[in-house]
């Protein structure tokens, strides 16, 4: 399958922190989620992909362009939201639309206006007077109004109320239905990624710990609950991670390794990521 994003042996050092993306790919036509704690390297990854930072080593290819910082034609096909990069705070959405119509070759003023109306945004309200949710919606409206084939979104749902999050997720879901469209999205909110993504990558301390198809990932693991005294009935080798509570212990296990006496519980993405982190990302 063709890659929308491919990182090979990429390394970026920022002080004592080092981001290493040895072999990381996003397949074209998929929604790929990047999960990681604060400081794990998510925003650095996004900035490298958009050419806002330069890798010290390795190769990055975005929509087949290996020099995105110099390639305005490729950037024309990318919609994005990046942490600490934004539109001028004094301009309103209408003025931003007028400016960007001279930037993007395929700017669709009708689609932009329709999205602003759908988001119930005042076209004449300065960006700085907008709430966090409104600001994200303005940036998303921009990202979706120039026929982009790749969306690179850094935490688009963080800080939003559940209704706004749902609205944004359904919009992204509609966008992803086109097989030519790819979304690469980072988030703390794993439930959002669970709803939206086809593939999940877990980033921890600058390293890719896990990349897998979401359904396969969720299907291969199960939670098992037992008591402290019942723990000895399980094969220690089969326990990937465990979380100890006052009265019971939760075990993360491969589905096929669960003994018949135990009851497997389907796991959420959030629980899985937490348990894998506890187990030192042993899979």
């Amino acid at each position: 399958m063709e890659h929308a994003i491919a990182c090979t042996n990429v390394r970026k050092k920022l002080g004592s922190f080092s981001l290493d993306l040895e072999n990381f790919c996003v397949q074209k036509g998929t929604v790929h989620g990047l999960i990681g704690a604060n400081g794990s390297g998510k925003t650095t990854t996004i900035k490298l992909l958009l050419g806002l930072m330069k890798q010290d080593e390795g190769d990055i290819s975005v929509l087949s362009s290996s020099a995105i910082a110099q390639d305005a034609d490729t950037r024309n096909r990318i919609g994005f939201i990046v942490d600490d990069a934004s539109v001028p705070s004094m301009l309103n959405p209408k003025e931003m639309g007028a400016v960007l119509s001279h930037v993007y070759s395929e700017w669709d003023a009708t689609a932009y206006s329709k999205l602003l109306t759908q988001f119930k945004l005042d076209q004449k309200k300065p960006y700085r007077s907008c709430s966090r949710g409104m600001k994200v919606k303005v940036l998303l409206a921009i990202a979706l109004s120039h026929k982009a084939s790749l969306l690179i979104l850094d935490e688009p749902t963080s800080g939003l109320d559940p209704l706004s999050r749902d609205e944004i997720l359904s919009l992204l879901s509609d966008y992803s239905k086109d097989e030519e469209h790819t979304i690469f999205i980072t988030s703390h909110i794993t439930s959002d990624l669970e709803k939206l993504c086809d593939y999940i990558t877990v980033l921890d301390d600058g390293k890719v710990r896990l990349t897998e198809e979401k359904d396969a990932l969720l299907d291969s693991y199960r939670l098992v609950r037992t008591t402290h005294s019942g723990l000895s009935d399980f094969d220690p080798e089969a326990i990937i991670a465990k979380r100890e509570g006052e009265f019971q212990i939760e075990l993360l296990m491969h589905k096929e390794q669960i003994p018949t006496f135990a009851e497997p519980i389907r796991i959420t993405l959030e629980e899985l990521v937490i348990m894998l982190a506890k187990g030192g990302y042993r899979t």
Partner: protein
Amino acid sequence: MKALLLKDWYLLRKRWGILFGIVLLFSVLAGAQATMLYTLMSTMMLLMISLNTLAYDQHDGWDAYVCALPVSRAQLVLSKYLLAFLCIMISVVLVLISTLVLGDRSAESLIGNASVQISFGFIFVACNFPLILKFGFEKSRVYYLVVAGVLIGLTSLVSQSELASPTFPALPFLVPLFALLVVLGSLRLSIFLVKNKEFSET
């Protein structure tokens, strides 16, 4: 380029009221009193308007955002220099009108004023823009104030010295030409710096 200038226009028309009033005041004083200090202050205040757009860009994170848009970084730098050039030209026109209405209407005086304003403006831009684009407006604040003070002082001194006397008739044309070469060098340096700029934080 059009988009970047349009963005700056939207920004300035919301913010330039008071500053433009001060520019007009200095321009009127420059024409009425024929003092080089007022002439230079008129240019300086207009250049502050273009510097302000850089400050707003960096404060809002637009400087990073725009680099991910399909706009080349060279165009981005060029648009800032072009805006500064427009500001210098507006100050020249304002002082010219003021001098024609209120002051000395001799060709010598008019050319002299324009020459000083253009030279001052170009050198000011040439000295400040690369640093502001590289290190940001806040970090360069002290530096550009020092540059402004030194340039205003030097220009006032030179304009009152023998060098500015009619024995050097080519001076009003040679100095702006020299300043133009300096600003072109500065433009190249700024493009190089911005092309290699990384946005690890804004």
